[in-house]
Protein backbone atom coordinates (compact mmCIF):
# COMPACT_ATOMS: atom_id res chain seq x y z
CA UNK A 1 0.00 0.00 0.00
CA UNK A 2 1.35 3.43 -0.95
CA UNK A 3 0.63 6.79 0.67
CA UNK A 4 0.69 5.45 4.24
CA UNK A 5 0.89 8.90 5.81
CA UNK A 6 -2.07 10.11 3.80
CA UNK A 7 -4.17 7.11 4.80
CA UNK A 8 -3.32 7.77 8.45
CA UNK A 9 -4.35 11.41 8.04
CA UNK A 10 -7.74 10.38 6.63
CA UNK A 11 -8.24 7.91 9.44
CA UNK A 12 -7.39 10.57 12.00
CA UNK A 13 -9.98 12.97 10.53
CA UNK A 14 -12.66 10.32 10.81
CA UNK A 15 -11.73 9.44 14.39
CA UNK A 16 -11.66 13.11 15.42
CA UNK A 17 -15.12 13.70 13.95
CA UNK A 18 -16.56 10.80 15.90
CA UNK A 19 -14.75 11.86 19.07
CA UNK A 20 -16.09 15.39 18.70
CA UNK A 21 -19.58 13.99 18.14
CA UNK A 22 -19.36 11.85 21.26
CA UNK A 23 -18.30 14.88 23.28
CA UNK A 24 -21.23 16.96 21.98
CA UNK A 25 -23.60 14.10 22.74
CA UNK A 26 -22.21 13.89 26.29
CA UNK A 27 -22.84 17.62 26.74
CA UNK A 28 -26.46 17.36 25.59
CA UNK A 29 -26.97 14.44 27.95
CA UNK A 30 -25.50 16.47 30.83
CA UNK A 31 -27.54 19.55 29.97
CA UNK A 32 -30.80 17.61 30.12
CA UNK A 33 -29.78 15.96 33.39
CA UNK A 34 -28.97 19.41 34.81
CA UNK A 35 -32.36 20.69 33.63
CA UNK A 36 -34.25 17.78 35.19
CA UNK A 37 -32.46 18.06 38.53
CA UNK A 38 -32.16 21.88 38.42
CA UNK A 39 -28.41 21.47 38.95
CA UNK A 40 -26.98 24.90 38.10
CA UNK A 41 -23.45 23.78 38.89
CA UNK A 42 -23.58 20.99 36.34
CA UNK A 43 -25.18 23.40 33.85
CA UNK A 44 -22.24 25.77 34.28
CA UNK A 45 -19.81 22.90 33.65
CA UNK A 46 -21.61 22.12 30.41
CA UNK A 47 -21.38 25.78 29.32
CA UNK A 48 -17.64 25.77 30.02
CA UNK A 49 -17.05 22.49 28.20
CA UNK A 50 -18.67 23.65 24.96
CA UNK A 51 -15.36 25.41 24.26
CA UNK A 52 -13.72 21.99 23.99
CA UNK A 53 -16.06 21.05 21.14
CA UNK A 54 -15.33 24.38 19.42
CA UNK A 55 -11.60 23.76 19.71
CA UNK A 56 -11.94 20.25 18.33
CA UNK A 57 -13.90 21.70 15.42
CA UNK A 58 -11.17 24.23 14.57
CA UNK A 59 -8.50 21.54 14.84
CA UNK A 60 -10.45 19.25 12.51
CA UNK A 61 -11.12 22.05 10.04
CA UNK A 62 -7.40 22.86 9.85
CA UNK A 63 -6.52 19.21 9.33
CA UNK A 64 -9.06 18.83 6.50
CA UNK A 65 -7.88 22.01 4.77
CA UNK A 66 -4.27 20.82 4.98
CA UNK A 67 -5.10 17.43 3.46
CA UNK A 68 -7.10 19.01 0.62
CA UNK A 69 -4.30 21.49 -0.07
CA UNK A 70 -1.48 18.99 -0.03
CA UNK A 71 -2.91 15.64 -1.09
CA UNK A 72 -5.49 16.51 -3.77
CA UNK A 73 -7.97 13.90 -2.54
CA UNK A 74 -10.52 12.43 -4.96
CA UNK A 75 -13.35 9.88 -5.00
CA UNK A 76 -14.07 8.19 -1.63
CA UNK A 77 -11.24 10.12 0.07
CA UNK A 78 -12.74 13.42 -1.02
CA UNK A 79 -16.19 12.27 0.04
CA UNK A 80 -14.83 11.29 3.47
CA UNK A 81 -13.19 14.69 4.00
CA UNK A 82 -16.26 16.64 2.88
CA UNK A 83 -18.50 14.45 5.01
CA UNK A 84 -16.25 14.82 8.05
CA UNK A 85 -16.06 18.60 7.66
CA UNK A 86 -19.80 19.03 7.23
CA UNK A 87 -20.56 16.57 10.04
CA UNK A 88 -18.21 18.52 12.29
CA UNK A 89 -20.20 21.68 11.52
CA UNK A 90 -23.40 19.90 12.57
CA UNK A 91 -21.75 18.53 15.69
CA UNK A 92 -20.43 21.96 16.62
CA UNK A 93 -24.02 23.27 16.52
CA UNK A 94 -25.14 20.35 18.70
CA UNK A 95 -22.54 21.47 21.27
CA UNK A 96 -23.92 25.01 21.10
CA UNK A 97 -27.44 23.74 21.74
CA UNK A 98 -26.22 21.83 24.82
CA UNK A 99 -24.84 25.12 26.06
CA UNK A 100 -28.13 26.91 25.30
CA UNK A 101 -30.09 24.24 27.22
CA UNK A 102 -27.69 24.61 30.15
CA UNK A 103 -28.33 28.36 30.14
CA UNK A 104 -32.07 27.73 30.48
CA UNK A 105 -31.31 25.58 33.55
CA UNK A 106 -29.42 28.50 35.10
CA UNK A 107 -32.28 30.88 34.26
CA UNK A 108 -34.80 28.54 35.93
CA UNK A 109 -32.65 27.41 38.87
CA UNK A 110 -34.80 29.16 41.49
CA UNK A 111 -38.18 28.36 39.90
CA UNK A 112 -40.37 25.49 40.97
CA UNK A 113 -41.36 23.53 37.85
CA UNK A 114 -45.09 23.76 37.32
CA UNK A 115 -45.08 20.21 35.99
CA UNK A 116 -42.86 17.17 36.17
CA UNK A 117 -40.63 17.09 33.11
CA UNK A 118 -41.64 14.02 31.11
CA UNK A 119 -41.79 14.90 27.44
CA UNK A 120 -38.49 16.80 27.35
CA UNK A 121 -36.42 13.87 28.76
CA UNK A 122 -38.26 11.54 26.39
CA UNK A 123 -37.48 13.82 23.45
CA UNK A 124 -33.86 14.06 24.63
CA UNK A 125 -33.59 10.29 24.88
CA UNK A 126 -34.65 9.82 21.24
CA UNK A 127 -32.60 12.77 20.02
CA UNK A 128 -29.47 11.50 21.72
CA UNK A 129 -30.03 8.05 20.27
CA UNK A 130 -30.28 9.67 16.83
CA UNK A 131 -27.02 11.57 17.33
CA UNK A 132 -25.29 8.41 18.55
CA UNK A 133 -26.58 6.30 15.68
CA UNK A 134 -25.88 8.90 13.01
CA UNK A 135 -22.26 9.12 14.17
CA UNK A 136 -22.07 5.34 14.37
CA UNK A 137 -23.41 5.08 10.81
CA UNK A 138 -20.62 7.45 9.71
CA UNK A 139 -17.97 5.58 11.68
CA UNK A 140 -19.05 2.13 10.51
CA UNK A 141 -20.17 3.31 7.06
CA UNK A 142 -23.54 1.72 7.74
CA UNK A 143 -26.28 2.91 5.35
CA UNK A 144 -29.24 0.96 6.89
CA UNK A 145 -28.45 2.49 10.29
CA UNK A 146 -28.33 5.96 8.69
CA UNK A 147 -31.75 5.40 7.17
CA UNK A 148 -33.17 4.27 10.54
CA UNK A 149 -32.10 7.60 12.07
CA UNK A 150 -34.35 9.42 9.64
CA UNK A 151 -37.42 7.50 10.79
CA UNK A 152 -36.85 8.45 14.43
CA UNK A 153 -36.97 12.11 13.55
CA UNK A 154 -40.73 11.90 12.96
CA UNK A 155 -41.20 10.85 16.58
CA UNK A 156 -39.19 13.84 17.82
CA UNK A 157 -41.33 16.18 15.71
CA UNK A 158 -44.48 14.60 17.08
CA UNK A 159 -43.41 15.02 20.73
CA UNK A 160 -42.43 18.61 19.93
CA UNK A 161 -45.95 19.35 18.67
CA UNK A 162 -47.53 17.72 21.72
CA UNK A 163 -45.27 19.69 24.02
CA UNK A 164 -46.23 22.90 22.24
CA UNK A 165 -49.91 22.22 22.90
CA UNK A 166 -49.24 21.33 26.55
CA UNK A 167 -47.18 24.47 27.16
CA UNK A 168 -49.86 26.60 25.50
CA UNK A 169 -52.45 25.24 27.92
CA UNK A 170 -50.19 25.90 30.92
CA UNK A 171 -49.83 29.51 29.82
CA UNK A 172 -53.57 29.84 29.24
CA UNK A 173 -54.28 28.39 32.70
CA UNK A 174 -51.96 30.81 34.43
CA UNK A 175 -50.04 33.59 32.66
CA UNK A 176 -47.43 33.46 35.45
CA UNK A 177 -46.28 30.20 33.84
CA UNK A 178 -45.31 32.07 30.68
CA UNK A 179 -41.62 32.58 31.44
CA UNK A 180 -41.02 28.96 32.40
CA UNK A 181 -43.17 27.60 29.57
CA UNK A 182 -41.34 29.68 26.97
CA UNK A 183 -37.96 28.59 28.25
CA UNK A 184 -38.93 24.92 28.30
CA UNK A 185 -40.30 25.36 24.80
CA UNK A 186 -36.90 26.72 23.80
CA UNK A 187 -35.26 23.57 25.19
CA UNK A 188 -37.66 21.45 23.15
CA UNK A 189 -36.89 23.52 20.07
CA UNK A 190 -33.14 23.01 20.66
CA UNK A 191 -33.69 19.24 20.94
CA UNK A 192 -35.75 19.25 17.77
CA UNK A 193 -32.92 21.06 15.98
CA UNK A 194 -30.33 18.62 17.36
CA UNK A 195 -32.40 15.79 15.88
CA UNK A 196 -32.31 17.61 12.51
CA UNK A 197 -28.52 17.81 12.72
CA UNK A 198 -28.44 14.05 13.39
CA UNK A 199 -30.52 13.55 10.24
CA UNK A 200 -28.02 15.69 8.28
CA UNK A 201 -25.18 13.49 9.52
CA UNK A 202 -27.12 10.35 8.58
CA UNK A 203 -27.87 11.74 5.09
CA UNK A 204 -24.19 12.29 4.61
CA UNK A 205 -23.37 8.67 5.43
CA UNK A 206 -25.36 7.77 2.33
CA UNK A 207 -23.29 10.26 0.33
CA UNK A 208 -20.07 8.87 1.80
CA UNK A 209 -20.90 5.31 0.76
CA UNK A 210 -22.99 5.69 -2.36
CA UNK A 211 -21.84 9.08 -3.65
CA UNK A 212 -25.45 10.27 -3.95
CA UNK A 213 -26.38 13.70 -2.72
CA UNK A 214 -29.98 13.46 -1.51
CA UNK A 215 -32.24 13.72 1.47
CA UNK A 216 -33.23 10.26 2.63
Amino acid at each position, binding site marked *: *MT*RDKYIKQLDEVKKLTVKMGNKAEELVNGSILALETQDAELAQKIIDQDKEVDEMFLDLEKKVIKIIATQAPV*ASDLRLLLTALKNATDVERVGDFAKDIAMVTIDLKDDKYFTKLIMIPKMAEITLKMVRESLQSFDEENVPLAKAVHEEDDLVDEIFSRLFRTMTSFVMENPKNTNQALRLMLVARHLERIADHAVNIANRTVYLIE*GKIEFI
Partner: protein
Amino acid sequence: MVRMEIKDVNLWYGTFHALKDINMKIYKNKVTAFIGPSGCGKSTLIRCLNRMNDLIDTVKVTGEITLDGKNIYDKDVDVVKLRKDIGMVFQKPNPFPISIHDNIAYGPRLHGIKDKNKLNDIVVNNLKGSALWEEVKDILDQNAMSISGGQQQRLCIARCLAVEPEVILFDEPCSALDPISTGKIEDLITQLKKDYTIVIVTHNMQQAARISDYTGYFYLGNLMEFNKTKKIFTNPDNPQTEKYITGKFG
Protein backbone atom coordinates in the same frame (compact mmCIF):
# COMPACT_ATOMS: atom_id res chain seq x y z
CA MET B 1 -22.00 12.60 -31.15
CA VAL B 2 -19.39 9.90 -31.65
CA ARG B 3 -16.37 10.98 -33.70
CA MET B 4 -14.15 7.96 -33.29
CA GLU B 5 -14.94 4.47 -32.15
CA ILE B 6 -12.55 1.81 -30.95
CA LYS B 7 -13.96 -1.68 -31.45
CA ASP B 8 -12.39 -4.86 -30.05
CA VAL B 9 -8.88 -3.53 -30.50
CA ASN B 10 -5.99 -5.83 -29.58
CA LEU B 11 -2.35 -4.96 -30.08
CA TRP B 12 0.81 -7.02 -29.81
CA TYR B 13 4.44 -5.88 -29.73
CA GLY B 14 5.89 -9.15 -31.04
CA THR B 15 4.51 -11.66 -28.55
CA PHE B 16 3.67 -9.10 -25.89
CA HIS B 17 -0.08 -8.51 -25.74
CA ALA B 18 -0.19 -4.75 -24.98
CA LEU B 19 -3.87 -3.90 -25.59
CA LYS B 20 -6.67 -6.32 -24.81
CA ASP B 21 -10.16 -6.07 -26.30
CA ILE B 22 -10.45 -2.30 -26.06
CA ASN B 23 -13.86 -0.80 -26.80
CA MET B 24 -14.60 2.87 -26.38
CA LYS B 25 -16.13 5.92 -28.03
CA ILE B 26 -14.46 9.26 -28.55
CA TYR B 27 -17.08 11.98 -28.57
CA LYS B 28 -17.03 15.02 -30.85
CA ASN B 29 -15.98 18.34 -29.26
CA LYS B 30 -15.14 16.62 -26.00
CA VAL B 31 -11.86 15.98 -24.24
CA THR B 32 -11.22 12.31 -23.52
CA ALA B 33 -8.39 11.50 -21.11
CA PHE B 34 -6.50 8.22 -20.84
CA ILE B 35 -5.01 7.54 -17.42
CA GLY B 36 -3.23 4.61 -15.81
CA PRO B 37 0.17 3.55 -14.49
CA SER B 38 3.23 3.35 -16.74
CA GLY B 39 3.05 0.47 -19.17
CA CYS B 40 -0.75 0.19 -18.99
CA GLY B 41 -1.22 0.77 -22.73
CA LYS B 42 -2.61 4.30 -22.78
CA SER B 43 0.14 5.74 -25.00
CA THR B 44 -0.01 2.64 -27.20
CA LEU B 45 -3.72 3.19 -27.72
CA ILE B 46 -3.44 6.91 -28.48
CA ARG B 47 -0.80 6.05 -31.10
CA CYS B 48 -3.24 3.61 -32.68
CA LEU B 49 -5.67 6.47 -33.24
CA ASN B 50 -3.54 7.96 -36.04
CA ARG B 51 -1.62 4.78 -36.88
CA MET B 52 1.66 5.95 -35.43
CA ASN B 53 2.23 2.35 -34.37
CA ASP B 54 2.55 1.41 -38.07
CA LEU B 55 6.08 2.78 -37.81
CA ILE B 56 7.06 -0.03 -35.44
CA ASP B 57 7.83 -3.29 -37.33
CA THR B 58 6.77 -5.83 -34.74
CA VAL B 59 3.36 -4.32 -34.05
CA LYS B 60 0.20 -6.23 -34.91
CA VAL B 61 -3.20 -4.61 -34.49
CA THR B 62 -6.59 -6.30 -34.76
CA GLY B 63 -10.08 -4.83 -34.43
CA GLU B 64 -11.40 -1.58 -35.82
CA ILE B 65 -10.89 2.10 -35.15
CA THR B 66 -13.30 4.34 -37.02
CA LEU B 67 -13.26 8.04 -37.77
CA ASP B 68 -16.77 9.18 -38.67
CA GLY B 69 -17.69 5.55 -39.34
CA LYS B 70 -14.73 4.75 -41.64
CA ASN B 71 -12.17 2.21 -40.39
CA ILE B 72 -8.79 3.96 -40.37
CA TYR B 73 -7.06 0.58 -40.71
CA ASP B 74 -8.74 -0.12 -44.07
CA LYS B 75 -6.29 -0.75 -46.92
CA ASP B 76 -7.51 2.26 -48.96
CA VAL B 77 -6.78 4.78 -46.17
CA ASP B 78 -4.12 7.37 -47.01
CA VAL B 79 -2.04 7.40 -43.82
CA VAL B 80 -0.52 10.82 -44.55
CA LYS B 81 -3.99 12.34 -44.87
CA LEU B 82 -5.10 10.43 -41.78
CA ARG B 83 -2.30 11.99 -39.73
CA LYS B 84 -3.32 15.40 -41.05
CA ASP B 85 -6.91 14.79 -39.96
CA ILE B 86 -5.82 13.35 -36.64
CA GLY B 87 -2.94 15.52 -35.45
CA MET B 88 -0.64 14.76 -32.57
CA VAL B 89 1.24 16.74 -29.96
CA PHE B 90 3.98 14.92 -28.10
CA GLN B 91 5.37 14.91 -24.59
CA LYS B 92 8.53 16.79 -25.42
CA PRO B 93 8.07 19.94 -27.52
CA ASN B 94 9.61 19.12 -30.89
CA PRO B 95 9.63 22.24 -33.06
CA PHE B 96 11.68 22.14 -36.28
CA PRO B 97 14.99 24.04 -35.96
CA ILE B 98 13.72 26.73 -38.32
CA SER B 99 11.86 30.02 -37.79
CA ILE B 100 8.63 30.23 -35.79
CA HIS B 101 6.83 31.33 -38.96
CA ASP B 102 8.13 28.42 -41.03
CA ASN B 103 7.30 25.86 -38.35
CA ILE B 104 3.64 26.64 -38.89
CA ALA B 105 3.83 27.24 -42.66
CA TYR B 106 5.65 23.92 -43.18
CA GLY B 107 2.59 21.67 -43.09
CA PRO B 108 0.30 23.81 -45.27
CA ARG B 109 3.18 24.25 -47.77
CA LEU B 110 3.64 20.50 -47.90
CA HIS B 111 -0.07 20.16 -48.57
CA GLY B 112 0.27 22.49 -51.57
CA ILE B 113 -0.37 26.04 -50.37
CA LYS B 114 2.12 28.37 -52.07
CA ASP B 115 0.50 31.81 -51.75
CA LYS B 116 2.58 33.86 -49.27
CA ASN B 117 -0.34 35.96 -48.02
CA LYS B 118 -2.40 32.90 -47.43
CA LEU B 119 0.47 31.24 -45.56
CA ASN B 120 0.93 34.39 -43.46
CA ASP B 121 -2.75 34.34 -42.56
CA ILE B 122 -2.47 30.69 -41.54
CA VAL B 123 0.55 31.47 -39.34
CA VAL B 124 -1.17 34.41 -37.61
CA ASN B 125 -4.49 32.65 -37.12
CA ASN B 126 -2.96 29.52 -35.69
CA LEU B 127 -0.60 31.39 -33.40
CA LYS B 128 -3.67 33.22 -32.11
CA GLY B 129 -5.55 29.92 -31.89
CA SER B 130 -2.81 28.45 -29.75
CA ALA B 131 -2.60 31.53 -27.49
CA LEU B 132 0.97 32.26 -28.55
CA TRP B 133 0.55 35.24 -30.88
CA GLU B 134 0.99 38.01 -28.31
CA GLU B 135 4.26 36.46 -27.11
CA VAL B 136 5.92 35.87 -30.51
CA LYS B 137 4.36 38.33 -32.95
CA ASP B 138 7.57 40.41 -33.09
CA ILE B 139 9.97 37.47 -33.39
CA LEU B 140 8.37 35.34 -36.11
CA ASP B 141 11.69 35.06 -37.97
CA GLN B 142 13.54 33.87 -34.88
CA ASN B 143 14.53 30.21 -34.59
CA ALA B 144 11.84 28.22 -32.80
CA MET B 145 14.44 26.55 -30.59
CA SER B 146 15.08 29.90 -28.88
CA ILE B 147 11.67 30.24 -27.20
CA SER B 148 10.75 28.64 -23.86
CA GLY B 149 9.57 25.04 -23.48
CA GLY B 150 5.99 26.10 -22.82
CA GLN B 151 6.03 28.39 -25.85
CA GLN B 152 7.56 25.63 -27.97
CA GLN B 153 4.74 23.30 -26.95
CA ARG B 154 2.11 25.87 -27.94
CA LEU B 155 4.01 26.33 -31.23
CA CYS B 156 3.72 22.59 -31.79
CA ILE B 157 -0.01 22.87 -31.15
CA ALA B 158 -0.21 25.80 -33.63
CA ARG B 159 1.73 23.69 -36.16
CA CYS B 160 -0.74 20.87 -35.64
CA LEU B 161 -3.73 23.23 -36.06
CA ALA B 162 -2.29 24.70 -39.27
CA VAL B 163 -3.15 21.60 -41.30
CA GLU B 164 -6.76 21.78 -40.09
CA PRO B 165 -7.15 18.49 -38.24
CA GLU B 166 -10.43 17.18 -36.89
CA VAL B 167 -9.06 15.32 -33.92
CA ILE B 168 -6.00 16.27 -31.86
CA LEU B 169 -4.10 13.70 -29.82
CA PHE B 170 -2.01 14.94 -26.92
CA ASP B 171 0.50 12.46 -25.50
CA GLU B 172 1.42 13.86 -22.08
CA PRO B 173 1.70 17.41 -23.45
CA CYS B 174 2.58 19.04 -20.13
CA SER B 175 4.93 16.59 -18.46
CA ALA B 176 7.99 18.61 -19.49
CA LEU B 177 6.44 21.97 -18.60
CA ASP B 178 6.28 24.18 -15.49
CA PRO B 179 2.92 24.86 -13.78
CA ILE B 180 2.34 28.20 -15.55
CA SER B 181 2.98 26.77 -19.01
CA THR B 182 0.86 23.75 -18.01
CA GLY B 183 -1.98 26.10 -17.06
CA LYS B 184 -1.76 27.80 -20.44
CA ILE B 185 -1.87 24.51 -22.32
CA GLU B 186 -4.82 23.35 -20.24
CA ASP B 187 -6.72 26.58 -20.94
CA LEU B 188 -5.88 26.16 -24.60
CA ILE B 189 -7.16 22.57 -24.70
CA THR B 190 -10.42 23.71 -23.09
CA GLN B 191 -10.79 26.38 -25.81
CA LEU B 192 -9.80 24.04 -28.63
CA LYS B 193 -12.49 21.51 -27.83
CA LYS B 194 -15.09 23.93 -29.21
CA ASP B 195 -13.66 23.25 -32.67
CA TYR B 196 -11.85 19.93 -32.32
CA THR B 197 -12.19 16.54 -30.72
CA ILE B 198 -9.41 15.95 -28.24
CA VAL B 199 -7.76 12.90 -26.72
CA ILE B 200 -5.11 13.32 -24.06
CA VAL B 201 -2.83 10.90 -22.27
CA THR B 202 -1.75 12.23 -18.91
CA HIS B 203 0.01 11.08 -15.77
CA ASN B 204 -1.33 14.08 -13.96
CA MET B 205 -4.58 12.94 -12.40
CA GLN B 206 -5.69 16.44 -11.52
CA GLN B 207 -5.10 17.50 -15.11
CA ALA B 208 -7.46 14.77 -16.33
CA ALA B 209 -9.98 15.86 -13.69
CA ARG B 210 -9.69 19.52 -14.67
CA ILE B 211 -9.85 19.42 -18.43
CA SER B 212 -11.46 16.22 -19.64
CA ASP B 213 -15.11 15.29 -20.13
CA TYR B 214 -14.53 11.52 -20.32
CA THR B 215 -11.82 9.42 -18.75
CA GLY B 216 -10.59 5.93 -19.48
CA TYR B 217 -8.56 4.12 -16.83
CA PHE B 218 -6.16 1.50 -18.22
CA TYR B 219 -4.29 -1.23 -16.40
CA LEU B 220 -2.08 -3.96 -17.92
CA GLY B 221 -3.54 -3.42 -21.37
CA ASN B 222 -7.15 -3.52 -20.23
CA LEU B 223 -9.60 -0.64 -20.20
CA MET B 224 -10.77 -1.00 -16.60
CA GLU B 225 -13.31 1.81 -16.65
CA PHE B 226 -14.55 4.36 -19.16
CA ASN B 227 -16.85 6.94 -17.71
CA LYS B 228 -17.66 10.63 -17.43
CA THR B 229 -14.72 12.34 -15.74
CA LYS B 230 -16.96 13.79 -13.05
CA LYS B 231 -18.10 10.29 -12.14
CA ILE B 232 -14.57 8.83 -12.20
CA PHE B 233 -13.22 11.44 -9.81
CA THR B 234 -16.11 11.52 -7.38
CA ASN B 235 -17.49 8.00 -7.35
CA PRO B 236 -15.93 5.57 -9.84
CA ASP B 237 -17.72 2.31 -10.60
CA ASN B 238 -14.63 0.11 -10.49
CA PRO B 239 -12.87 -0.25 -7.09
CA GLN B 240 -9.55 -0.56 -8.98
CA THR B 241 -10.05 2.87 -10.55
CA GLU B 242 -10.73 4.21 -7.07
CA LYS B 243 -7.48 2.73 -5.74
CA TYR B 244 -5.49 4.16 -8.61
CA ILE B 245 -6.86 7.70 -8.57
CA THR B 246 -6.61 7.96 -4.79
CA GLY B 247 -2.97 6.94 -5.07
CA LYS B 248 -3.30 3.74 -3.08
CA PHE B 249 -2.24 1.55 -5.95
CA GLY B 250 -0.22 1.79 -9.13
